[in-house]
């Protein structure tokens, strides 16, 4: 135990392995459609995890993460087409495009991050918001390369034959996506628990004091933006692989805003919150949709209710959840968990789940 609390890498790797096993087992229990949903959720998780770190911990508001995902998706599509032309097959056809997605988005993120480093609140929001309307503009301007509105299709190989002929494609997709998501969360968890994680929260809280503490505020902001963009790019790339297609319409302004909603409702600034958020992005539309489907109406009314009713429910849920659980689902869960723990007599006083684990190392040494 104390070995684990002293070695972040060992602790996080262990968690990673446990999570991977759990996901693996899960994919065998799910139907193809559920596996596809799991895969989509994992792709979203790449983006929401990066976004929650960016917004919640470094204090930079991005309304354009959907656009960054688009960059990743297009990079993935273009590079897979290029590789396809060269006759590449096998794992390279998957890994290289995803790497391209990460790199391309990181570069774009660096540019935006540099431009945005001096901006605050709504000004950064305005800048990133504009990114989302630029995506379709760029795809139509370079329609020959980017396929315009219609987008590009992505060259994807089926599941490896080694897995057997009847192995469902969706399970394979879930593996790919979950691997990417776990890796993302693992790295982000490392980062958040490191010195850099503390520094970005310091920058968020008070830029002047942060500078006086020797923190290079601009650099910190840009790095977080780049990291966050890279994870969004990976998410976009994975999404492209899952759907075998990219098009500008899939990365609309609304999508970017939904990503933000997801991280806030999940519990901003917490990776666990990002998981909740990604889950919501996948599950909530389906739930509200099926709820709305229950209602039987005359043809004339049905035409108007169709779609709109589930939007209405969706909107109401967002409003209510945000008001009732201001710290998001993660906050709700930790509070409930904390209450449960407090009732158990042998738990040490004053420990809360929200405390970063690095501090526990020296808690003892100080209190002693």
């Amino acid at each position, binding site marked *: 135990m104390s070995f684990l609390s002293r070695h972040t890498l060992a602790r996080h790797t262990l968690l990673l392995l446990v999570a991977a096993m759990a996901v693996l087992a899960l994919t065998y229990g799910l139907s193809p459609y559920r596996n596809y949903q799991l895969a989509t959720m994992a792709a979203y998780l790449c983006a929401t995890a990066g976004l929650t770190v960016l917004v919640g911990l470094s204090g930079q508001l991005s309304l354009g993460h959907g656009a960054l995902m688009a960059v990743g998706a297009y990079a993935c599509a273009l590079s897979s087409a290029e590789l396809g032309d060269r006759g590449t097959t096998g794992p390279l056809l998957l890994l290289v495009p995803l790497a391209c997605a990460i790199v391309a988005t990181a570069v774009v993120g660096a540019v935006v991050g540099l431009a945005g480093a001096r901006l605050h609140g709504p000004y950064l929001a305005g*800048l990133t918001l*504009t990114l989302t309307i*630029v995506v379709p503009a760029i795809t139509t301007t370079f329609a020959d390369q980017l396929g315009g509105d219609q987008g590009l299709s992505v060259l994807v190989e089926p599941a490896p034959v080694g897995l057997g002929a009847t192995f469902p494609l969706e399970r394979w997709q879930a593996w790919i996506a979950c691997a990417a998501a776990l890796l993302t969360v693992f790295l982000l968890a490392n980062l958040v628990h490191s010195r850099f994680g503390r520094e970005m929260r310091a920058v968020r809280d008070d830029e002047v004091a942060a500078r006086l503490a020797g923190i290079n505020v601009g650099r910190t902001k840009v790095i977080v933006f780049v990291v966050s963009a890279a994870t969004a790019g990976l998410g976009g790339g994975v999404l492209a692989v899952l759907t075998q297609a990219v098009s500008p319409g899939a990365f609309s302004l609304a999508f970017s805003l939904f990503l*933000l909603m997801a991280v806030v409702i999940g519990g901003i600034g917490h990776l666990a919150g990002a998981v909740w958020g990604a889950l919501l992005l996948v599950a909530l539309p389906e739930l509200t949709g099926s709820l709305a489907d229950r209602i039987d109406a005359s043809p004339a009314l049905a035409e*108007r209710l169709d779609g709109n009713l589930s*939007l209405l429910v969706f909107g109401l849920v967002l*409003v209510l959840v945000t008001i009732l659980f*201001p710290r998001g689902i993660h906050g709700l869960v930790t509070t409930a968990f904390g209450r449960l723990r407090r009732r158990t007599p042998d738990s040490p006083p004053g420990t809360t789940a929200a405390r970063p684990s690095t501090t526990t190392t020296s808690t003892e040494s100080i209190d002693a």
Partner: protein
Amino acid sequence: MDRFIFLTVDGLARGAVFAAFALALVLIWRGARIVNFSQGAMAAASTYVAYSVTTATGSYWLGLAAAILSGLLIGAGAERLVMRFVDARQPLNAVIVALGLVLVIQAVLGIVYGSEYRPMKVPFSRTPLSIGDQALLSPYDLFVFGTVVVVMVGLGWAFTRTDLGLTMRAAAFAPDMARLLGVNVGRMLTLSWGLAGAVGGLAALLVVPTELGAHPHATDLVFVYAFTAAVVGGLDSPIGAVVGGLGVGLVLSYVSGYSGSDISAVVILGVLIGVLLLRPSGLFGHTSARLV
């Protein structure tokens, strides 16, 4: 040259409505320190009210009054019934709730009015008056300009010169302190939202007839451009909103006219980055904040 004048005039006319909308955003930013993402949807709702009233009575002006009044009520209602209960310690929650409101409002509009575009009337001709061979502004454009200027001057005056404006700003900047100074912060917030709703409703009523007509999503893009305009101008400044709005209108017009409308969004982004790099709080924002 003719073409340049044509594009300039066209861009200004278009920019004026962005400016009107940006003013509503500035109003709420000054009065409540949040960017109201539901401004567009609220304004769309007001235009539908105006549409219904005008259809029922045949009078544009009654519709206009209805748009302003309903905007006021919708804005104030959103604050009293929803935004007031949002945890102020979580700065983003208000944004998320506003986005939730967008969905709710648009869904309700879709259910009530369906998803077809409803054409709306304009009170004055949209045929441009021309001098010689050169088509210039239409009477309607002049009407829009006049309205925008009146709103801008009115807001600027109200905010800086009147006691009400002062208390509204105080309530927005420092609610706790304002309370100690006798400001009824809740009422000020309601008022800010109401006024912003009214200005937004008015702005939407100016712009929607020039586009495809009333629609739950009719103001989505206008919102985006108006937000950009407000950011360019500086969210605290009514003049900035107008300058930003006209600027965005001109850029869109020149780019579509000289190069092709597909890259206009890219140019807007370029302008935005350029302005913000030089002035991180917009053209008319304060930049000389003392740090320590």
